[in-house]
């Protein structure tokens, strides 16, 4: 077992990547039982800094001290044995193994000729009782919800004897309820541990942390006690300018629906009805927010509108034509735009360049190709134009789109979808995991699109986002449209009840 960590301090850390100064002379320290929130926009260098503390990268300059002694971590194992544990943004769990087996993977003591699962079970029991972290040791990972998987990650890390936790955006995939639970849990754990957590969400930073440290462009621009500052002040320091919430203050939209969904029944991948006689309509120039806890049919709804999933029964009418069971190409041709949930693997082809991703839906249009021969010059100019207009931060348009940060990937997708002049846009969790600057940008773009008379279906879990942007708000629960509220009628608590399936 590692010694207690009374203080972790990094001094003058600098790290360079090709064309980027990821960390620029960073110094910070975390004391015993302290919770430090590390905030900053995407690409500010938060994850890089944490990866250096974990020994995944070595700093080019500067050093790391634990309890005043300098340490050099060659790889994560060194960091583990010093008592530092990290829970990554994407969980490192094997889906078809049980919780116990996953914990055993990280626990070298249990690696005997036969894995000593009994010892692992005792350790898991001890840790989960001690910290109040309930996990079922025999459940398979694939059976668990995202929140439960996160608890498994925490248990795994704690079983390795971590005295110091690093959490990279722990709440980015959690529902509001799970987030509250996690914050309570971490508060309790801070009686015995020190924690660094990375976050974009300033209300969580306020609720949880003792100290806050703001990174911008690889530099520490601010460090102080959380309680002395309001979220708004922190946001301003993070982005370098005042942040206003983007709000849709327009009058309700009249007119005929451009998208009309009637009695739609759709099966999920696991063969149950994900949409069960679902009804919804959206008018031109209107944003309809669809609130709901994820997994209630949102994914299937977005896919079925875009021709990516089969309709069992019911109709989808788009601009007067029924489009159910058309191919994706046919739906795209009719002017449907789609910002998918999985932006990294569905919204872009990760290994292809920004330039090539920009024309993903339009390679055959007469603008970009003649007789099937691509017009490279036009495509390049167009990609450069969009890169400037949408402020896509990348060295040039030839870098693989998958190498960009989440916010910039979303901007690539948005640029492509908006600039092809869609008649309608389906938008799924558009700002999930994005920083405030990027989120603000995307919301402004959506409102501008609304002004142009485009109907938008905004699917989100973030009630604040839905309430700020929507003209009308629908709530989905178990594949059914619970109720449609006008903007003025919706409150967080009312939506929360509807999302939980409580009718009114």
């Amino acid at each position: 077992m590692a010694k207690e960590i009374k203080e972790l301090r990094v001094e003058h850390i600098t790290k360079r990547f090709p064309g980027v100064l990821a960390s620029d002379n960073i110094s910070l320290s975390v004391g015993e039982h302290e919770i430090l929130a590390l905030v900053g926009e995407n690409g500010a260098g938060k994850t890089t800094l944490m990866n250096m503390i974990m020994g995944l990268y070595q700093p080019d300059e500067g050093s790391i001290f634990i309890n005043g002694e300098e340490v050099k971590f060659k790889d994560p194992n060194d960091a583990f044995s010093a008592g530092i544990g990290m829970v990554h943004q994407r969980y490192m769990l094997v889906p078809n193994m049980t919780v116990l087996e996953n914990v055993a993977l990280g626990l070298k003591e249990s690696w005997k000729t036969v894995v000593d699962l009994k010892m692992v079970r005792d350790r898991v029991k001890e840790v989960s009782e001690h910290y109040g972290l309930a996990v079922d040791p025999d459940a398979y990972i694939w059976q668990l919800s995202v929140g439960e998987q996160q608890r498994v990650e925490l248990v795994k890390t704690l079983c390795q004897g971590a005295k110091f936790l690093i959490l990279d955006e722990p709440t980015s995939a959690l529902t509001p309820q799970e987030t509250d639970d996690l914050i309570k849990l971490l508060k309790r754990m801070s009686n015995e541990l020190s924690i660094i957590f990375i976050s974009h969400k300033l209300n969580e930073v306020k609720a949880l942390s003792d100290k806050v440290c703001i990174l911008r462009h690889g530099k520490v621009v601010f460090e102080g006690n959380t309680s002395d500052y309001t979220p708004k002040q922190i946001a301003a320091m993070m982005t370098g300018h005042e942040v206003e919430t983007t709000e849709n203050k327009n009058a309700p939209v009249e007119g005929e629906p451009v998208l009309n969904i009637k009695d739609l029944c759709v099966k999920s991948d696991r063969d149950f009805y994900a949409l069960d006689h679902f009804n919804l309509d959206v008018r031109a120039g209107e944003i309809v927010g669809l609130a709901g806890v994820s997994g209630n049919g949102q994914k299937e709804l977005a896919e079925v509108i875009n021709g990516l999933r089969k309709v069992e029964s019911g109709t989808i009418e788009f601009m007067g034509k029924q489009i159910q069971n058309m191919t994706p190409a046919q739906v795209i041709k009719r002017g449907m735009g789609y910002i998918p949930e999985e932006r990294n693997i569905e919204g872009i082809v990760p290994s292809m360049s920004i330039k090539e991703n920009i024309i993903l839906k339009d390679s055959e249009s007469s603008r970009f190709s003649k007789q099937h021969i691509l017009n490279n010059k036009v495509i390049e100019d167009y990609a450069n134009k969009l890169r400037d207009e949408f402020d896509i931060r990348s060295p040039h348009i030839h870098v693989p789109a998958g190498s960009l940060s989440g916010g910039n990937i979303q901007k690539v997708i948005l640029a492509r979808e908006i600039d092809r002049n869609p008649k309608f846009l389906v938008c799924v969790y558009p700002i999930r995991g994005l920083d405030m600057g990027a989120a603000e940008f995307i919301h402004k773009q959506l409102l501008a699109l609304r002004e142009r008379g485009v109907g938008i279906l905004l699917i989100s879990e973030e009630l604040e986002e839905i309430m700020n942007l929507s003209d009308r708000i629908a709530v989905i629960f178990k594949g059914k449209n619970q109720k449609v509220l006008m903007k003025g009628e919706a409150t967080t608590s009312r939506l929360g009840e509807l999302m939980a399936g409580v009718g009114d």
Partner: protein
Amino acid sequence: MSNYKLIYRITVLTAAVFIALLVGAAIIIAVGGNVFETYWIILSMPFKNFRSLCEVFTRMIPLMIIALGICVSSRCGINNIGAEGQMHMGVVAACAVAFAVQGLPRLIAIPLCILAAALAGGAYGFVPGFLKAKLEVSELLSTVMLNYAAALFYNFCIRVPLRDPNDATGTPMSARLPDNTLLSKFFRGTSFHGGIILAILLVVVIYVLLFKTTWGYKMRAAGASARAARYGGINVPKYLIIAMVISGACAGMAGATELMGLQTRAMENITSGYGFSGIVVALFASLHPIAVIPAAFFFGILLYSQVNLQILTSVPPNLVQTIQGVIILIIVALQMIINNPYSQEKFRKRFFKNQIKDIKEA
């Protein structure tokens, strides 16, 4: 691709060759051969005179054509292990058509034979492509199985329908192809034949197809991320099938050139394993049609050395195949290093310090 990345790739591939040669050296010692002598023969004999260089060029022809087809299928995300079978089918078709077009002018007869081979190989590639696209049958299984079927069908053809009626020796083979279907040799006394024109032409065609046309763009998108391609309205199954047909057609044409340029009759073992070597060439070329040329040259040298080793040393010529196998393993391993951004970064830091400054200043 930026400068250092290209140099990085070349360095890693060169390292692959050296490691393979080292492993090969261990094997040579194990069989009691002389390492330096063996390697000297492998590397110097092709350059000893013009005739032997032409032998290397001759071997490049089928290697290039097959590798180009593999570039298309692999970039579209389907692994064509069936080039061997598609090549067999190409030989059968070219051979059958050659006897049918007897008497036609060469300029018509030769393209007809090659076209027939392309169609036959393409059709044979269509089957696993269709099975994969519509029924999700693993192409690894189906192509390997179809290889056996094609080899047996070929052996049947040269014993029964295509068999040389005037042969008295009992060797299973076809008659010599009519003169108007034979590819001419470039130089008297060498084996270097006109198939190279087709190979070079195909380099250009496949390069343009993959990187300059919307079809190639869609195939690459489908191969790189089928899900994103589907989202973008690309008919992934359709392009999968097209890519397999092109890949099979290439292998079929490789069979035609081997038949019409070199062997002049369909006989046993006509494919000489090119269907598999071609895959290695494509991998070695990082699936880039232009890089296929140097890669095929290198493997041409290796394959040609089998002949010399047999004549000049006690080292078994199978050694060359062993080295090929070692190179496949090493390349597959090195692909990971090549694609690893961190080792790229380390490499750049060590050798391209100046460029960092440039970037910072810019």
